């Protein structure tokens, strides 16, 4: 299993799962079904895929400010990604995990990675470790 080199932790934690590298940004509202973990944006390249429990690499979030509420609901229902990897800090994603920790005592790690380190790993099971550099 490959260990993903993490640059910094936005929301700390460790995770393991199948890596899904999204080639396009995603709005979770209108793009993600919290009840199933399925990508439902029919214009999105991952349309139809289920991402619950996956390590999801996103370029950034698009669109609706309801993204955070959908991700929080996905945490509640156990259908959130195991971790979300981003090339830079994303408020929408980070907030969902921060509030999930406040409300349910569990969130998901949000980690900054250099996108090129994911080349060739899409679809494989990866491990994400804590990183000593914390944003929050």
């Amino acid at each position: 299993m490959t260990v993903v080199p993490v640059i910094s932790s936005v929301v700390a934690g460790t995770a393991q799962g199948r890596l899904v590298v999204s080639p396009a940004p995603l709005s979770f509202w209108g793009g993600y079904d919290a009840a199933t973990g399925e990508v439902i944006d029919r214009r999105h390249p991952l349309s139809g895929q289920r991402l619950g429990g996956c390590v999801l690499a996103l370029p950034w979030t698009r669109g609706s400010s309801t993204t955070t509420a959908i991700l929080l609901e996905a945490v509640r229902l156990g259908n959130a990604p195991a971790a979300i990897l981003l090339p830079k800090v994303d408020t929408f994603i980070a907030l969902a995990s921060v509030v999930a920790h406040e409300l349910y005592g569990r969130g998901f790690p949000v980690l900054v990675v250099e996108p090129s380190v994911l080349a060739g790993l899409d679809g494989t099971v990866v491990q994400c470790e804590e990183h000593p550099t914390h944003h929050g």
Partner: protein
Amino acid sequence: MRLRDRDEAMLGGEMGPATALAMKIVSRMGRIAGAPRLIDITHAHIDSTIFVGDAGLEFAERLASLGARVVVPSSLNVSGVDEHHWGEWPVASEWASKAHRQMVAYRSMGTTETWTCAPYQTQARPSFGQQIAWGESNAIVFANSVIGARTERYPDLYDVCAAITGRVPEVGLHTDAGRRGHVLITMTGVPHRLQELDEFYPVLGFLIGRLADDRIPVVEGLTVRPTDDQLKAFGATAASSGSVALFHLVGITPEAPTTAAAFGGLSPEVTHHVGMPELLDARRQLTTNADAPVNLVLLGSPHFSIDEFRQLAPLLRGRRKADSVEFLVTTSRIMRTLAADTGMLRDLEAFGGRITVDTCVLATPMLPPTITTIMTNSGKYAYYVPGLLSRQVVYGSLEDCVESAVQGRVVRDDHAWSVA
């Protein structure tokens, strides 16, 4: 990040447990964003009102039960249910009940009950340079771009924490440096006549959102001065197809008197040249199936304004929609009241049209399964309908929408798009 004594007092619970929870979240988000400090805001627009599941409701009721009160004037975005009319549609009572509990929770915090995604068309409209914390992507982009107020993209759950504390991290779009353009988009060869049409702006917005992604676009080459409603439609669509929270239209929006000013003296990271081929492709992408039998004509995302009612009413007079088509306008209570006072609601009802307030079809599960194809003049509806509602969508002008409702089939006048 440095906290002021008052911030520390909030964090320590001196202003009560709800404020402490809200400040814990705001200050943590400030550290995550790398902010040097928190700053005061003078207005909030709370998008957390949208009901999407139990988690958001639990958060709202937790805050309310802890005695949360907003400390700045705070307007409310759409909710998950039309409070007094949901029974006219097949909305499940369990959904209505939970969505209503969420409305009650936010109502209890001392907010202003606008229940609209277009707060900038109410008295909640901010002014140039005002520091605010707004949720709702279309409201954010309008406040920043058209008005020149300053807000980051505040997601649900964050906006209410900002309203309760009156504080936000000083980062991004709150700062001069964060408002400079990144991407130059030069538009050429687009007929002036097309630019005058309302139906041009959602298409341009879809294209610009795709090109800008999460960067700030600067668009040059418009030869007309768009109306507020055209800018509303442009921004709402750009904030759907991309993450646009601020755009500059050179010579039109307040922070872009010139291209150089819009970039704050720096050079564009990238330049895109667009014209009719790109616009025609964007227009095609707003429609999933133009041949399906339309059974709902849908107007009002963002919420229909009184000016839009003024455009619509004369198109409806003396006509009636086909029995096979529903005709629905989504708007706010205040706009419905204005439309009723001016007699325009009567025109809509005589046509066979209906109205929904407080919410919209994307935020409340109100449509019966018999509705399979939706026609709309809204780029935001066109963007989200296929994914959120699993329905086909057809994009057309306001006139096309009315004509299609009358004839009971999709009718589109492509003339303005074919002259190029």
